[in-house]
């Protein structure tokens, strides 16, 4: 059985829950009192992850940490269609890796601003917000042209990849860090497409769509 060391409000933990829901992979949650208990910094948790971070995934004794690494593992092991992490196509795989790296940027800016604004983390929030806007501008341009080229996801594949899931939560919760998305209409439409994926689950702050409003892939 897969066990996910998880804090419900963590964007990086949510990325894993979302992928496992989309892949219909059953798993158990091990709640970590990340806030306010700082359990991830405890000596006990240090034995699971010496870096003191969540998420950590334990798949029958195989332990892997770091959001993107877990996504790579889950997609490679549990997606028989090989579309979420397209290992058979060198170019698509490289672009997936490229956009996974982009998600490191959105996590370190947009999601950092969220931790500052909601939990009082001592970050330079103006720098975080400015950095997030620089990335969102690039993402919006990429997705806007994608809509005109028949590409609906960040990678040129008819199917979303784990790169979409790695970026999505940072963007979808950006307003909790004071980062408006009003200037990024193509990003907002892409968020709607992600939310309409069959099997989609939300998290606090990210609602699933109404069952009665089907998506428009436009």
């Amino acid at each position, binding site marked *: 059985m897969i066990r996910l060391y998880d804090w419900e409000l963590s964007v990086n933990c949510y990325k894993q829950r979302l992928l496992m829901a989309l892949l219909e992979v059953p798993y158990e949650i091990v709640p970590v009192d990340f806030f306010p208990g700082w359990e991830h910094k405890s000596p006990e948790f240090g034995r699971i992850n010496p870096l003191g971070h969540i998420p950590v995934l334990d798949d029958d004794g195989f332990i892997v940490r770091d959001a993107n690494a877990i996504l790579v593992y889950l997609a490679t092991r549990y997606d028989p269609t090989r579309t979420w992490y397209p290992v058979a196509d060198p170019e698509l795989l490289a672009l997936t890796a490229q956009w996974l790296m982009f998600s490191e940027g959105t996590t370190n800016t947009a999601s950092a601003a969220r931790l500052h604004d909601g939990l009082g983390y001592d970050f330079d929030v103006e720098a975080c917000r400015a950095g997030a806007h620089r990335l969102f501008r690039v993402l919006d341009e990429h997705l806007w042209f994608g809509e005109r080229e028949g590409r609906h996801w960040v990678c040129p594949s008819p199917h979303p990849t784990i790169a979409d899931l790695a970026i999505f939560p940072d963007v979808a919760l950006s307003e909790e860090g004071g980062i408006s998305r009003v200037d990024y209409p193509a990003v907002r439409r892409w968020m709607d497409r992600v939310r309409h994926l069959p099997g989609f689950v939300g998290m606090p702050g990210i609602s699933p769509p109404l069952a*009665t409003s089907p998506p*428009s892939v436009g």
Partner: protein
Amino acid sequence: MASSRPEGQGWFPVAASDDAVAHHVVEAVLAERELAVWRDDDGWVNVWENRCLHRGVRLSIGHNEGMELVCQYHGWRYASRTAGCTYIPAHPADAPARTMCNRTYPAIERYGLIWTTLADATGSDGPPSSAPLESGSTLPLRAMAVNVPAGRALDSLAGLDLPDPNSPDGTTGGPHRRIDGFTLVAGSGEGVVVFFAQPVAAERCVVRGVVGPAPDEGATLALLRRFNRFLTEWRDEVEAQAEFRPGKRATPPPPTPAIAACSDGTRTRVRVSRRWLTARDVVAVELEAVDGVLPTVQPGAHIDVHLPGGLVRQYSLVNEPGRQDVYLIGVKLEPESRGGSRWIHQSLSVGDVLTIGGPHNNFALRRDAQLTLLIAGGIGITPLLSMARSLHRSGIDFRLHHFARSPEHLAFTDLLAGLGEHHRPHLGLDPAATTVELESILAEPGAGHQVYICGPGPMADAARRVAAEKGWPEESVHFEYFANTRPRDDRHPFTVELARSALTLEVPAGRSILEVVRENGVQLESSCEQGACGTCTVGVIEGVVDHQDVHLSERERAEGRRVVTCVSRAAGDRLVLDL
């Protein structure tokens, strides 16, 4: 800076037409006013203040369900076009008041952009016409949000060499033509590019370029990329000079009152836009607004149609909420017509202008049932078809049982076909067979099931009786009668006291409470005035009521807390009314 359109006064683009895709809500800001922009399933573009009238939550975090926008906070539903509230889940049995209406702004699509104005639009002729774009097709560029004031952005562009839409790598030199403070035209000869500035806040704007005529399809993407590259580099430069400020939400201006000036629905002028025979003896009539938009439709609602000679007749709307570009009614020729249906059948023509009242809704649809049974007899299909369409769109389970004499008597068959298996016709049954069928339909009062019945008196009475026999709780069975066919007795005189108005009035034989109250200057809304629709119902504080209506349920009669003032009377000498 030339500026013939002060910010917030004129028409400005707030989104590209392509931004407003189906089932999506676009967020926009114009002159610090936040807007929710959404397209309905009929293609109509709504521009609303981005604030739910109930608790101020941004509507842009809500859901575009196709014909209605649903607020994320409490699930309140608002109709396309009017922004009128159609349903409040916390009170599923109640029809929302007509005055519950979010603030709307006019919307016009032109040059591939969505335009609006924050000013009072009456008498305004819409977006500025840009002569170079009028002649043919247009291609909107990717919008560029810039953290500099609108005027400054266009000042800067005016002096630059811009990409020439006529040649794949040529440029066109400035200065370009400044039409006004918010419009700049560049290029000559065949193709031009026009930049419209959307003022967002004092130091922010969105520059929206449009190329006309649109290039060949094969050249479109390259042109879009070329302009986008140019505008991106220009933005970075102009922002660097202005000191970069990351985009923030605009500071909202003081909110407008929650209850906007939406139609109170008392009187609307409409024109007959279509009429056709939809079934034997049933004419369908489409009514369009003479000016503005038609008031909000709720499932089950009816309008009062004012006919020549002072006649007023009630007709249920077939429309579903939001889908109300025209009102659709079905009028059956009554053999004993006093002039209403006969006049509509024989004299009403396309182009005629009528006055209507309402819509009123005394037949509100709950959306919290596990299963909704709609039971229609003949022309009673009209309000139930409106309900069925609304439930069908939302994927709420229902059956529409439809009693009619023959297939030729089924009205609106095109709309019925859209309901698929949910529509169950029962044709050619005599009263006894109808009762047997009703006994089967209503065999079991399911938990969380609701029944809505509309049809001619004998059929509705039969359904009501069967439901009671089968043990359906009274509050789960809802009726709308076409008419009150019960005999009435108005011989008994009595006194009414109006508690809030501090008036004591005598109601003589032959007169109704409603008439006497109105004569004494107290406002009281009414519709059918024959005890069927319930519009004129008033609370009773003291006294026993002689109920003569068909609107109230048995329980409501027994409780005696409400009186339908157009027909019912005091059983004793006196009634004290909450009026």
